[in-house]
């Protein structure tokens, strides 16, 4: 499609050259953002999927989609928020399809064991707790889950999370509160 557009009859050579230069500029700008936002995309995907290969796959797909539509993004400062939305949507889609597949294959994916009186360090270290925590996070409403993930990421303050998601600071705090409370109730 891009090549067809470039050889459209009636377009002058100058127009094509200008478009080509713009495209290369845009490519360079995206390259810079890729290094900056690639880890964010992966971590959001991983926070939803809890599977390295799937998360990498989804993050790559999201970044590629972002690249394809990068020219249409008027406010480039919103790139991070835009990318997070793309990757989060894709990750949720992937998770749903994976759950459907798992439901077909097995009736229960997670063990129902509960620790008797573990310490905090033991719990955190335990892979069993990790599995329960991931399961509990999966059951959180999507909006709460995303805020919880972003707020827990290193280098992101609540203000930045507010900016990324385009929601007020008070909403971020309330979503975080409900997410933590629901997790505690599920893991009690």
């Amino acid at each position, binding site marked *: 499609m891009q090549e067809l557009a470039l050889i459209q009859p009636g377009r002058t050579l100058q127009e094509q050259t200008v478009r080509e230069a713009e*495209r290369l500029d845009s490519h360079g700008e995206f390259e810079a953002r890729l290094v900056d936002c690639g880890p964010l995309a992966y971590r959001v995907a991983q926070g939803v999927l809890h599977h390295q290969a799937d998360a990498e796959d989804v993050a*790559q797909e999201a970044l590629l989609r972002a*690249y394809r539509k990068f020219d249409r993004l008027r406010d480039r400062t919103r790139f991070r928020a835009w990318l997070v939305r793309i990757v989060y949507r894709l990750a949720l889609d992937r998770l749903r399809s994976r759950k459907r597949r798992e439901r077909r294959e097995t009736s229960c994916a997670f063990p129902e064991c509960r620790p008797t009186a573990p310490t905090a360090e033991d719990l*955190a270290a335990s892979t069993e707790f990790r599995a329960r925590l991931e399961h509990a996070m999966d059951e959180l409403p999507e909006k709460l889950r995303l805020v919880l993930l972003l707020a827990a990421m290193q280098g992101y303050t609540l203000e930045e999370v507010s900016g990324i998601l385009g929601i007020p600071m008070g909403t971020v705090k309330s979503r975080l*509160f409900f997410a933590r409370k629901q997790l505690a109730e599920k*893991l009690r």
Partner: protein
Amino acid sequence: MNCQQYQERILDAFAAGEATFPDALVEHRRNCWACRAYYESQASVFRSIDEGVKAIANEEVPRSLVPGVRALVNDELPSPSSWMSGWEVAAVAAAILAVSLGWVLYRPVRHTVSRNDGVPARSVESPVAVMRRLPEDPVPSPSRELKRTSARVFGHGAGNSATAMPEVIVLPEERAAFARFVADTPEQGVVLAVTRAAPSKEDEPFQIAVLEIHELEVQSLDPSWE
């Protein structure tokens, strides 16, 4: 405020990430064994949640992520002169097509007149003369091959090819003489003329000869021209 209400306040305070608790809550916790135990258990749960979520949210990023995306993006990015090469490819393809078509349509069809007659071979360019065997001759003649060739080239039926390429019907016993006659004609500017009216029957022979023009005078039809 009873213990249940205090415990709800404790849970909310941890969920909100509050660093300090109200004095009343601190005082109640100091005096109530159950609420103190609940506070400690909740502190442990929230610490675990914080550490676990932090670990999940900060997973190590695979090194292959950025190079992988870069490769995908580079695959999609057209090379700087790709649109030029597109034109070039189209031009070259068109030129090759035109040359091929021209060669196929206008190539000279060569045919050896006497193949089996013991007469020295002589190439005759179409459409000067094309031989066609009579129906009773079972041996396939080169002229049939030519007819097929012309039909293939022009894309018409045999009738059309006959109009495009005049044929001379030669009886089998006359073929050697005809070949000799064609071989003796000058290389350039051969004009063959029928020496008498064509017979009504297709298989009757008729004579042809080289047309000789000794003198040619061209006169104007308009008298005022001179």
